[in-house]
């Protein structure tokens, strides 16, 4: 399992509790859709879910940064997961959803198409992401879960955002060059 360290630490106590209650060793994920694909994110890092609202753009930011919103007085950046996954910008409507998550000390919002479900998964049911032999842009993929006839891709927050861990540049696969600009 590859949760972010902070999230794991925060979650561990409650995990224990949950395990006792479930009597099983399962982990819960919130699943959401981007296009036809279904993704899952550890429920313990999710703070709230809210409808899309207009953001304030951040100048010269990578394209997947949709700007900032006011979340009860806190300035929270919104990341477009579709763009982050290299599938172009989301055409936002009022029906789109922002998942507010906590990663480490930061609060960020993830723009997705819709939130669909909460699933309980035992670790043994998580399959590794198959190697496709491509220069993969998949360090944010945690694993795959088969659920009846659906497949859910589990997303790890730690790999999603440049500022969290690895050096800048490596995390801007959209190639809009704005990182290079900043460096210059």
């Amino acid at each position: 399992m590859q949760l972010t360290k902070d999230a794991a630490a925060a979650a561990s106590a409650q995990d224990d509790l949950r395990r006792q209650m479930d009597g099983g060793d399962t982990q819960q994920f919130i699943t959401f859709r981007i296009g036809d694909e279904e993704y899952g994110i550890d429920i313990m890092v999710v703070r709230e879910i809210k409808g899309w609202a207009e953001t304030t753009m951040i100048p010269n930011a990578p394209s997947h940064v949709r700007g900032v919103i006011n979340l009860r007085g806190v300035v929270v950046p919104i990341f477009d997961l579709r763009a982050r996954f290299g599938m172009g910008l989301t055409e936002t409507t009022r029906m789109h959803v922002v998942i507010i998550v906590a990663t480490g000390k930061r609060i960020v919002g993830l723009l997705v198409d819709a939130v669909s479900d909460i699933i309980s998964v035992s670790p043994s049911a998580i399959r590794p992401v198959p190697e496709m032999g491509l220069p993969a842009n998949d360090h944010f993929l945690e694993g795959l879960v088969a659920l009846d006839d659906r497949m859910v891709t589990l997303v790890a927050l730690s790999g999603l955002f440049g500022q969290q861990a690895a050096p800048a540049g490596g995390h801007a696969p959209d190639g809009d060059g704005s990182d290079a600009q900043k460096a210059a």
Partner: protein
Amino acid sequence: MNPLAQFRQTYFEECAGLLEEMQAGLEALADGAGDDETLHAVFRCVHSIKGGAGVFGFDALVAFSHLFESLLDQLRDHRVPPNRDVLQVLLHAGDALADIVAAARDDATLPEDFAADVTQSLRALLEGTSAATPAPHTPHPTEASQPGERHRYRIVFTPRTELLERANEPLLLIRQLQRLGDLAVAADTSRLPRLDVMEPEAAYLKWIFTLDTGAAEGSIRDVFEFVEDDCDLTIERVAPASTDAAVAVEAAPPPKGTGEAPIAHTVLAQSIRVDVEKLDRLVNLVGEMVITQAMLTEESQTLPTDRYPSLIKGIEALAQNARELQDSVMAIRAQPVKSVFARMPRVVRDLAASLGKEARIVMTGETTEIDKTVIEQLNDPLTHMIRNALDHGIEPPEERVKAGKLRVGTIHLAAAQRSGRIIIEVSDDGRGIDRDKVLAKARERGLVAPGTQPGDDEIDNLIFLPAFSTAETISNISGRGVGMDVVKRNVQSLGGRIDVTSKFGSGSRFVMSLPLTLAVLDGMVVSVGRQTYIVPLTAIIESLRPKAADIHRVVGRGDVLALRGEYVPLTYLHRCFAIDQAITDPCRGIVTIVQSEGAGRVGLVIDQLLGQQQVVVKSLEANYERVEGISGATILGNGRVALILDVARLNESANGSRSAPANEWFDADALVTA
């Protein structure tokens, strides 16, 4: 954190305050401005430092402060004349005390001979007097345990409940007694009630100590001096080893106790210590409330007044209360500038000595209050300005005399609050700015275009340019790699301005204007395309809509605006930030002339001015990262986030854009604005 460590921290926090007060008092005494009350205050400070040091077992600190305190005591009793030499020793002792406190705090070990000369002078002064009049205050045991003069004391110590309530710990007192000699302790538990009727926080015990010591009775009494009002204490000398009859001394407070105890108590009752973080949280919350209130007010204006009269009245009252609440909360964090000013006399004293100049500092308005956030960042620029005044302004004594001035130069440091801002002035009666020299140097460095003749004010302000601090002006004092440009940058980063006026031959005057707080900022709300930004009002010089004839293109450098005979470079905000749907023609939009770092004035091309507003500054970095050209964010009355422009940095990136291929700025354009 264990409780003792916490007390330790509190103790050192207190020490910092006490040292500051002591320093201020000593300065006043040295200047001849102090009176008996000042001396008492200094004494109390040193005394309190000693008291705490004893509890925590900082022996070196106890020993030194005791010596210091003894001399102060002699001064109070007029047994030592307050002449120059004595005051000099006191000043040095004050510095040494600060160092010893710092060493104790950092667990550092000071060299054996640390402050040996000061200790020596203190001793010499003390001995000089004690020969004439025997001091009632016996020296501290560490330096006074002469063998052969041991006595036995019987001490009966009955703490009252109040003693425990004031967080005094009998065990610590017992340990301190133990250090004085051979101690036998017997506890009298006869008053201890049965468990079921026992008050857990009451004091029931009584101790009888038998102490064999070479220390005098005063030292024993010193151990109890912080608790003597809260306990019953009998100290008597008993046989053997003594030929004297036992002297029973009732615990009458010594004369000095009468003056200080009530003062200490009233202070305690009137102030509390609060964690700054808690205050910050409160400030943030109130900021939120003000925003919400602004939102409500805006919304209420669409309501028909006759239908909801009480609702509208209520919202008006809320607005009033919210504003008052915000002011009060800000006032909690406000501190008098005294805490920064108090360090300056020392700067002047030390520097004047090393420069061979004579100068005094006069301070006014020290009680003016500003937000903690500003105070913290005021020290560096202020210190530098004082240094600058002393180094470049004040002339050597002979030169002053020749010029018909007083031998001793005066630096005036003043603070005042004026229309929501704080004005800090540093003026000197020195030689002033030699404009011819400054202008010559500026021309030599290409800072002033040949053929132009800047006005006097403009010449004076040339000294703030980064390139101006040159080898010639650098002395080992004020030129430690820091020029007036750094002062200016510091002040600007605080949202302030600095100006200088000078009269050659009779002095210079630096005037800083600073916001009262960094948490709130006066901003101009502007729009570019569909985006809204805040420009700090302090950065704005003027705003105008230029005529097409005034806009010129300089090949390879971009556009300039002809403004009253000067050419101001234009920065297109929509280009810097890749904003589409913006007005690209400055003649249809607005040009806001802003003061930027280094490059002087810059015209910022925007679409519209939306209005002036006070905004609460929020961090963008907390959840995202630093953004070039943006200094922070705020939340507008409509609940939307607006970014605050960092005008100085904006210019830098805009400069880059002029030399870089233009399309680089447009890369993210189509992508970002959906």
